[in-house]
């Protein structure tokens, strides 16, 4: 272990879905973390409960946003926080999306469920320097309409011309849920996207099965594996490469990931229980 968490104050809690909130955090004291880049994560510490890795979902000048889905003791404690509460934060850790390397290319961003969280700062970064990139496609999938994150932002993005194509799909839609959009897997949206495979970088995050299906589809369309960037997830305890939990074959996801190229990830994602 390398450093202790810095105290951060929760300034805002935005409920995204029934089980997911976005916390806005600012340093509670004079010390602040080093700057984050999109794709990196922090270890967020809930006092008396524990610490979990959470990707940064928006990067402000002082404010860091972290979107947390309640799936265990620590994430449940974080989701229950109110404005004014304190958390601890270590980071930034891991690799970023490296959007800069895609300058001049078409961008294809594909998100499934909570996987949109680490991709949001990437989309915002691309929109902020729009002229540096070609066409920008954003494909978003969620289980149900109620599971969609950043609903207002998605609506505004769908209406923006800066985004060549922003499509949203849900796995299931029930009568009366008000959903009138696509129903089906996010891979089905690929055919609507506008990109030149030989000059595109794709950014994928979501359930591993979705990442696998999307990456294979993209390779089939001619994207080279190294230009399919994926963000993967494993249990993490230390984030500094010492606890051994985040191993995926020879990759230590806290150190070599969470964002890695499909050229490295494909073999690792093809073996059951690796």
């Amino acid at each position, binding site marked *: *272990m390398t450093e*202790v968490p810095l105290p951060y104050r929760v300034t805002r809690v935005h409920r995204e879905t029934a089980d997911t909130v976005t916390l806005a955090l600012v340093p509670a004291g004079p010390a602040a973390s080093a700057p984050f880049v999109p794709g990196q994560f922090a270890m967020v510490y809930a006092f008396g409960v*524990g*610490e979990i890795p959470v990707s940064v979902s928006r990067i402000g000048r002082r404010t860091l946003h972290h979107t947390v889905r309640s799936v265990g003791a620590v994430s449940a404690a974080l989701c229950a926080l109110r404005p004014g509460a304190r958390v601890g934060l270590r980071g930034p850790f891991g690799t970023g999306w490296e959007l800069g390397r895609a300058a001049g290319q078409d961008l294809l961003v594909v998100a499934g469920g909570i996987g949109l969280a680490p991709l949001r700062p990437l989309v915002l970064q691309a929109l902020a320097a729009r002229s540096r990139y070609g066409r920008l496609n954003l494909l978003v999938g969620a289980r149900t309409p109620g599971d969609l994150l950043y609903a207002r932002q998605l609506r505004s993005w769908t209406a923006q011309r800066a985004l060549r194509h922003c499509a949203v799909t849900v796995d299931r839609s029930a009568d009366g849920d008000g959903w009138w959009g696509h129903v089906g897997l996010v891979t089905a949206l690929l055919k609507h996207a506008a990109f030149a495979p030989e000059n595109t970088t794709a950014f994928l995050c979501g359930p591993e099965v979705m990442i696998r299906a999307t990456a294979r589809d993209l390779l089939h369309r001619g994207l080279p594996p190294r230009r399919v960037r994926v963000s993967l997830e494993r249990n993490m*305890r230390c984030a*500094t490469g010492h*606890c051994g939990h985040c191993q995926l074959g*020879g990759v230590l996801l806290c150190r070599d990931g969470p964002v890695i190229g499909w050229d490295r990830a494909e073999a690792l994602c093809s073996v059951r229980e*690796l």
Partner: protein
Amino acid sequence: MSDRRTTAVLARTGLDALVQALRARGRTVVGPTVRDGAVVLAELSSAEELPFGWGTRVEAGRYRLVRRADGAAFAHTAGPQSWKTFLHPGREKLWDADRTADGQLSVTEAPRAHISYAFLGVRPCDLRAVAVQDRVLAGGRYRDRGYQERRTGALLIAAECTEPGATCFCVSMGGGPGADAGFDLALTEVVDEAGHRFLVRAGSDAGDELLAEVPHRPADPETKAVARGAVDAARERMGRAMPPVDLRTLLGDSLEADRWDDVAARCLTCGNCTMVCPTCFCTTTEEVTDLTGDHAERWQRWDSCFDLDFSHLHGGPVRASARSRYRQWLTHKLSTWYEQFGSSGCVGCGRCVTWCPVGIDITEEAAALHDELAARLRQDGQRGRGARGVRDVRYERKEPER
């Protein structure tokens, strides 16, 4: 460098002078001693606590102490502990956290006891294991501060191996019974008609200084020759060997092997192998609060990849089957460790074989994986499907690591 390092001979009594000199310097001397039917590592107040006259008889899943007539102190093989017990302890507090009445949070790094260790009787396999953990815990971008402090402050006195056990295979892992680097002093025990004595070589300035403080005599050619001969003979007496193939490639290409089902049917997933392994470094964390609820402590403790919780992700463990957990352990140790930390994770000390309650022998598992892969490649070759295969797997003798 080595020219000006001292080589000398210590009498049997010189060993205690060494222990006392170290203690006088404020060092905590840790070495092997007999306790509860095993040679364990513990703090020593005198060299008399060393296991003089004790040897060990080991086999897969079996460890017994045996009496030795020659009275040797370092004629035992690796016991259930290794030096990681001291350098990378099983439990360590990381930080204290306090919540004040107005809801503020303060986190302070846990104070660490400044212990300066002297390890007496470090086997060459364990010297290499310490070097492996150095790369893992203090060789990357982030350093484990506790480990680094303890390690930097530790003085290592090696004891060369002259009595390898039936589960030892360091030579086939590129090591050997001789100590060639990473020690402050290296002892080679000699017991013959000329008496019970130790050839001692300094490996650092600290070792030279220490040696200057204890009674010793210049190394005579006779003692040197006997000591060399005993170590050379030990090299030929390893009880086991890994198959002479590129283990990194073998394990990397065996992820879907049937052998994993075979070993999973025997493995209890108890994690003993990971606890006794001198290089296994994995840890987990625990959060502990006091009764007021306003003070919390964060602790780190050893963890094992055989534990179901180890790979827990929302929804359950990634590695649910025994097959996948055994595969993770062995593949990490022999193959993916190179990618992560630049070397093998195995030094061939044999502890995992000895202390496995069902006697699983990793040299036998590696040999079986080799047989299975070789058979598969032959089959693929005969069917003309050699596209992936013979070229990728290099069945050649592995060069020893230096």
